[in-house]
């Protein structure tokens, strides 16, 4: 698995650059996941704890597309992204739409509990359907890149980072330049104003949730060779991306990109310095301190509703 590989990695070359490199590669995934979380929180006010399950959906989809149906890597990843987009849209329609109709004042807490329930239910559902077997691949592309003399990195990791950055950039373009993208931003800023210019809130919510889920699915699909698909594969990325959004401030989409790399590099440094066990303790300790002294995150948040409920 990932960590075992890392262990060897460090035993051979205990090097600052390498720590930074690992952190950056890992940070790409966190940034991707965290942008999805921030988007869903910023627009819909949902503290999304089932985000990791969409990562898993993406991973399974890519596995079946690539291994079972024999699609080429790019097509596999693309179909996984599409499938997780659809899964997100369906989940929004089935669960969050009825909740929105019924729950007004207690929305934040009820939506949060709903995602918690959804996460547990989906994980067990995956386990029921596919068992706990790891479904992974050795690699999508059988090459390595020599980033620095004597330092080779699997093509998969580089491509995954590229996909993450590309997807984030495309999302940014979409939000800034298109009619629907503008509408998403409008809803996050003033729901009533959005309604009054003719925006269908339900449609925008569904689109937002689907996009967020797609980003998670993309992460799961593009990193399939590093972390195989299995029912609980979403937990680690979920927790790390929650670290990211907490650090930068909930709902801060652009901050989440930078935050992803901060957390990726921090984890990789902590792992290098402290080893597996204490790395988690260090990360959590840092988070607790940060939350204590800067509750709105490093870059602050414009979302007021979090403070009200």
């Amino acid at each position, binding site marked *: 698995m990932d960590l075992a590989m890392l262990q060897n990695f460090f035993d051979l070359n205990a090097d600052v650059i390498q720590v930074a490199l690992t952190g950056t590669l890992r940070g790409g995934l966190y940034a991707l996941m965290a942008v999805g979380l921030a988007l869903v929180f910023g627009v819909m006010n949902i503290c999304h704890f089932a985000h990791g399950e969409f990562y898993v959906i993406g991973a399974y989809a890519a596995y079946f597309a690539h291994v079972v149906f024999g699609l080429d890597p790019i097509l596999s990843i693309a179909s996984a992204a599409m499938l997780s987009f659809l899964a997100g849209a369906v989940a929004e329609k089935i669960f969050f739409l009825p909740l929105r109709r019924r729950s007004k004042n207690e929305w934040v807490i*009820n939506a949060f*509990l709903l995602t918690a*329930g959804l996460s*547990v239910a989906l994980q067990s559902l995956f386990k029921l359907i596919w068992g706990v077997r790891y479904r992974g691949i050795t690699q999508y592309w059988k090459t390595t890149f020599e980033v620095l003399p004597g330092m080779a990195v699997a093509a998969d990791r580089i491509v995954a980072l590229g996909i993450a950055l590309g997807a984030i950039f495309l999302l940014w373009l979409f939000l800034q330049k298109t009619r629907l993208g503008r509408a998403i931003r409008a809803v996050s800023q003033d729901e009533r104003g959005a309604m009054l210019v003719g925006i269908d809130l339900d449609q925008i919510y569904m689109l937002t949730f689907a996009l967020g889920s797609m980003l998670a699915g993309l992460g799961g699909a593009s990193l399939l060779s590093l972390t195989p698909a299995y029912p609980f594969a979403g937990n680690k990325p979920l927790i790390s991306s929650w670290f990211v959004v907490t650090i930068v401030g909930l709902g801060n989409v652009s901050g989440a990109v930078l935050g992803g790399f901060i957390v990726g590099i921090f984890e990789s440094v902590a792992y290098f310095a402290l080893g597996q066990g204490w790395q988690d303790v260090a990360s959590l300790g840092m988070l607790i301190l940060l*939350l204590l002294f800067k*509750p709105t995150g490093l870059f602050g948040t414009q979302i007021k509703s979090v403070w009200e409920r």
Partner: protein
Amino acid sequence: MERKVTSPLLTARLWLSSLGLSPEILACILGLALVPAFVREAYIVRLLAVSLLFGALAMAFDFTGGFINAVNFGFAGFVGLGAYTSALITVRLGVNPWIGLIAAALVTGLVGMFTGALTLPLRGIYVSLMSWFVGMALMALANAMVDLTRGARGLIVPPLFESASTVTHLYFLLGLTVLLYIGLRLIIRSRVGLAFRAIGQNYDAARASGVNPTLYKVLNFTLSSAAAGLLGGYYGHFVGILTPDLMDTWHTMEVMALAYIGGAGSLLGGVFAAFLFIPLFDSLKSLMEYRLIIYGLSLVLIMIFYPAGLAGLYQVVKTKLEFRKRKP
């Protein structure tokens, strides 16, 4: 209209109801106490004991979630802390497990107090995040300190009672749960409970009307965590082996699901939910596979369609019945 209280039966009933014990609840307690007299299968008795344990945990969770409206998402971490405290004191220092239990409550209560203080500048979902991080940090510590806790290999914990009979566990847990209920309920019914609810409904308004949110928030976290620690300590001695997995977030979700299915702010709702779900899952082995799906989906459905939970349903049915009774 005025009515003089003369009958001793009525006096007793009033006194009991001031403790939160209605005739229905007393009947349930009595029923549970009588089970071992009729049922010989140790497995059923054990199932009831486990239900009680989980119900009591849901109650401790609800004390925070249902009243000051702060979801302690790191709850399992606190339960685990209690379990490890009692187990380690017993195993490593050779102290009597009963003292271990008390230490578990004290240590976890202290960490709860500390966590409550950490969440002071925070509101809403940030409180949940902070408690989640604390809970996960506790789990990470249990994992990291392998020399002390033996990590995933598991720590063998000595039992509390000499006799291995589950009936003893059932009675002890029944007593513990009833005492916990009475205690928590007395607090809820007092001025302190009023302050809890005020903070839960509107933090700023509560502060503006003279409630000291600092004091009550910390007090609430301390008490809830101490209860979680006590029950966790008991759990360790009960099952006999501990791994850090106990502190995983999905255990929090399990307790949380019971508390919210039972009905937030009802205390007993979670106990009833535990008695509904746990024996059901266990009696139908095929359901074990679906256990977490059912928990998760129930939580989802309750949130969407009936946030008042079982307790809310019970109230509705009771009111309807009384209404019908009154009609000639």
